């Protein structure tokens, strides 16, 4: 196996710039890796739903031709990337992990996809996900689960398990994810990778097939904090096609990451969120978390405990707002214009076709949330459910605002547990939902968050994530703190955490 796949995106960028390798070589190395380990629904990592070898190699060849002519569009020009299947890609299938969109090929690119194409990053393919991003294990994909490269009997997190596993399994140096309640950060935590949810509005959502519009955000999925910073700077910024995108300059993330990597956090005030601990939190997770907090102190940070009392209501709030929005978003899947069409026997009406298609095309978790959301928005229930949830959402934002008056960043474990066995929580939606306990508040408030590897839990030897949260538009703090933690821990471990992951054999 080529050593190229072990390189970070930043290292590959330097090698390409120095003429030490070519984009075609790098891209081919990753395609070979995918062919070797990705397998399919039955076996292997199964991070990808669609691999575009020809397209990626063509883009790589164009990148090499540019380099040869002395041109480069971006630092990452020629570095390949994987894209979560919830982002529209012109000419490439986009299924959102759902049968209802099987075979749909968008006629347009999501803004972020347009940006990575314009910068010259070859797109390796589309990554697996829970259907319409609903889930924390990628088991709700209609096309079969993704498996955790650390232990293929376990979940890779979700909904973006495909992007995280692709990066963890060295199938891609970079990936795009989306995070509605933790779908970038929790998979990052359980696969030993880095995932960032930017400030709401920091990255365009145009072309992101919405789960919950007021919560969704596109973000980087990588193996290092610096790589996330590079990718974040590329995809961020105002988009006239997304009126919720913020019109402020993007930047300073790479600089913050480089500064953090020097290991000096003196003067930084860190708040440990009191409410995100206790019963149900895996001891090995809490141990790695406590060690990392101690590490921050060693690096000069001032650490205090902070209370955010409304966070205990975040889960209930989230599971009203999200289903409400998604019940409406998913109404467009009606067999009239695109996607699956199921025509019942006889001479069915348009309404009967819609019903049959939606019945066949949506999985159980999707139907569950459509029903909850429809109920929560119903006349007579709106105030008690959706209306009340919006009020609590405001209170959660106020808890964040109050906390950020005293501290620069807040920290918690990213997820209460390490990767659990496939199938373990499929029959218990509430247990599945609890995976996102620590990540959801940031989405409700629109603030940014990062998950960085904090080591392996003693009891199962599986990765644990450390979450850092910052005020809206202060994403640079995530990179400073994240890079400092990463540098100190990598040094302690004697190398990146993924060096400790088992060597992947081919699926057969």
């Amino acid at each position, binding site marked *: 196996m080529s050593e190229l796949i072990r390189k970070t995106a930043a290292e590959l960028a330097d090698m390409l710039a120095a003429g030490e390798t070519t984009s075609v070589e790098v891209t081919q190395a990753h395609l070979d890796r995918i062919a070797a380990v990705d397998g399919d629904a039955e076996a292997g990592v199964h991070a990808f739903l669609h691999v575009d070898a020809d397209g990626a190699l063509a883009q790589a060849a164009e990148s090499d031709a540019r380099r040869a002519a002395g041109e480069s569009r971006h630092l990452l020009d020629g570095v390949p990337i994987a894209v979560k299947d919830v982002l529209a890609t012109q000419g490439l299938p986009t299924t959102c992990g759902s049968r209802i969109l099987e075979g749909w090929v968008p*006629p347009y690119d999501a803004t972020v996809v347009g940006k990575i194409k314009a910068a010259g990053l070859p797109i390796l393919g589309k990554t697996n996900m829970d259907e319409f991003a609903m889930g924390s294990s990628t088991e709700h994909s209609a096309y079969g689960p993704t498996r955790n490269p650390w232990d293929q009997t376990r979940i890779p997190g979700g909904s973006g398990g495909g992007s995280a596993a692709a990066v963890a399994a060295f199938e891609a140096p970079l990936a795009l994810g989306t995070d509605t309640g933790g779908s970038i950060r929790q998979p990052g935590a359980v696969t030993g990778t880095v995932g960032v949810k930017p400030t709401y509005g920091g990255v365009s959502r145009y072309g992101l097939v919405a789960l919950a519009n007021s919560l969704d955000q596109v973000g980087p999925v990588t193996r290092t904090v610096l790589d996330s910073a590079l990718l974040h700077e590329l995809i961020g910024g105002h988009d006239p096609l997304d009126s919720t995108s913020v019109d402020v300059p993007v930047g300073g993330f790479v600089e913050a990451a480089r500064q953090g990597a020097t290991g000096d956090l003196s003067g930084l005030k860190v708040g440990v969120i009191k409410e995100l601990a206790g019963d149900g939190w895996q001891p090995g997770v809490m141990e790695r978390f406590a060690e990392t907090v101690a590490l921050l102190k060693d690096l000069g940070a001032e650490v205090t405990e902070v209370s955010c009392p409304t966070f205990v209501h975040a889960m209930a709030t989230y599971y009203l707002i999200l289903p409400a929005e998604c019940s409406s978003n998913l109404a467009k899947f009606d067999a009239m214009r695109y996607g699956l069409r199921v025509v019942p026997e006889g001479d069915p*009406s*348009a309404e009967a076709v819609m019903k049959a298609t939606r019945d066949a095309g949506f999985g159980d978790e999707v139907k569950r949330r459509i029903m909850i959301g429809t109920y929560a928005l119903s006349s007579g229930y709106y105030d008690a459910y959706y209306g009340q949830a919006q009020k609590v959402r405001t209170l959660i934002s106020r808890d964040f605002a109050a906390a950020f008056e005293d501290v620069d960043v807040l920290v918690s474990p990213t997820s209460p547990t390490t990767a659990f066995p496939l199938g373990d929580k499929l029959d218990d939606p509430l247990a599945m939902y609890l995976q996102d306990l620590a990540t959801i508040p940031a989405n409700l408030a629109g603030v940014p968050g990062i998950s960085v590897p904090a080591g392996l839990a003693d009891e199962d030897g599986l990765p644990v994530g450390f979450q850092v949260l910052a005020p809206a538009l202060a994403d640079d703090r995530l990179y400073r703190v994240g890079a400092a933690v990463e540098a100190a821990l990598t040094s302690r471990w004697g190398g990146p955490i993924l060096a400790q992951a088992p060597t992947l054999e081919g699926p057969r």
Partner: protein
Amino acid sequence: MTEVLVPFDEVIAKYDPALGLEVHVELNTNTKMFCGCPAVFGGEPNTQVCPTCLGLPGAMPVVNGKAVESAIRIGLALNCSIAEWCRFARKNYFYPDMPKNFQTSQYDEPIAFDGWLDVEVEGETFRVEIERAHMEEDTGKSTHVGGATGRIHGADYSLVDYNRAGIPLIEIVTRPILVPAEKAPAVARAYVGQLRDLILALGVSDARMDQGSIRADVNLSLAPKGADKLGTRSETKNVNSLRSVERAVRFEMSRHAGILDAGGSVLQETRHFHEDTGTTSSGREKSDAEDYRYFPEPDLVPVAPSREWVEELRGTLPENPTQKRARLQEEYGFSDLEMRDVWAAGALPLIEATVAEGTAPQSARKWWVAELLRRANDAGVELAEVGVTPQQVAEVQALVDAKTINDKLARQVFDGLIAGEGTAAEVIEKRGLALVSDDGPLIAAIDDALAAQPDIAEKIRGGNHAAAGAVIGAVMKATRGQADAARVRELILEKLA
């Protein structure tokens, strides 16, 4: 089910109506409400579409600023307050011509609210209170092919054109209009007509009811005279002419009365109006239980027009229609009676446009209110849609003034214009309608006429000039009307002097 219709006179003796009008105005912005597609009428089906107005997965809306401006101007012209902060909301329901299966509309935060419009019927003014005017997007257009009714039930298949999906609409909703029963149909018509004129004056819409750029939904309920609460309403959708508004109200009053007289209760439902018969029929049932699950559109940021902007837009409003009407009556020298007829015919904007082309006001009035109104009524269309433009009326009158034609020939020119035979000059040419301008043939015709009636010549010579009328008549007949009667008279008198 056979309906029992109560004669209108009996309805008004027993019941009081409550009217409610919802008028949808299609704006004439260059682009759609939430995307950059052209917002124009016509076009090959599904050629003016993009990911956003087709509702493709991932596409997002962006508000058209020009549409917001038009909405505010309409609101101001209707004496409404303009919201300092308002949001769009999703109205959720499934229908094949709705790309997203929700309509992006406004719910409890309309851009304009609490206004009024004074409407006049037969010299009496009624104030119609406006509850709200809100912004929304149009749906696509379904065509049901096969089947007898042209409706979805019984059709072989249906086609959907999404060119219309996303065209900006302003929906203007009245509060219940409580007017004397006998006036209700006329007030409904006058309100929609005056609203249309106002929209035209604002320049924010083509305001063509025949093309659906203004569509009225008529809500009506009846309650026994003196009752202290309103009855159950029906909603008649997409009534697309002023005349139909009036007929729909009349029909629904008669139908409701039939049900109530029989001790029945009116079903709250949507009804369709039929132009050909002037009747309504039941559409999809709509009850209070229909739940649109409105919630604020999370893909759009709130609209917060600054007070400075609102005041700036107030400065762009056209003259208040009531004041304008008084001013024009004064300028044109119309009597009150003439003005009432002009108003009732909806002819004032047409006369104004004709006068602007250089025609004398009384001539313009004569053509529109006498000649063309009769033709419009015969054809069952609005005066504005009779098929003759103000420019054409001005051309015809200019030809009359130049003695190329006379009034009688002018009527034939209008026939030709309505039949699409080209310009006025072309119609005259093709139909050979020009007056005989050469005296030679006229003198010959006069000689013939005098020879045929020698006693008349004697009378005229004797000073009885009125007797010339008989000769003129004969000459007109001989020239098939293409003689200038005044000239013929001059020639007769010259000859016999």
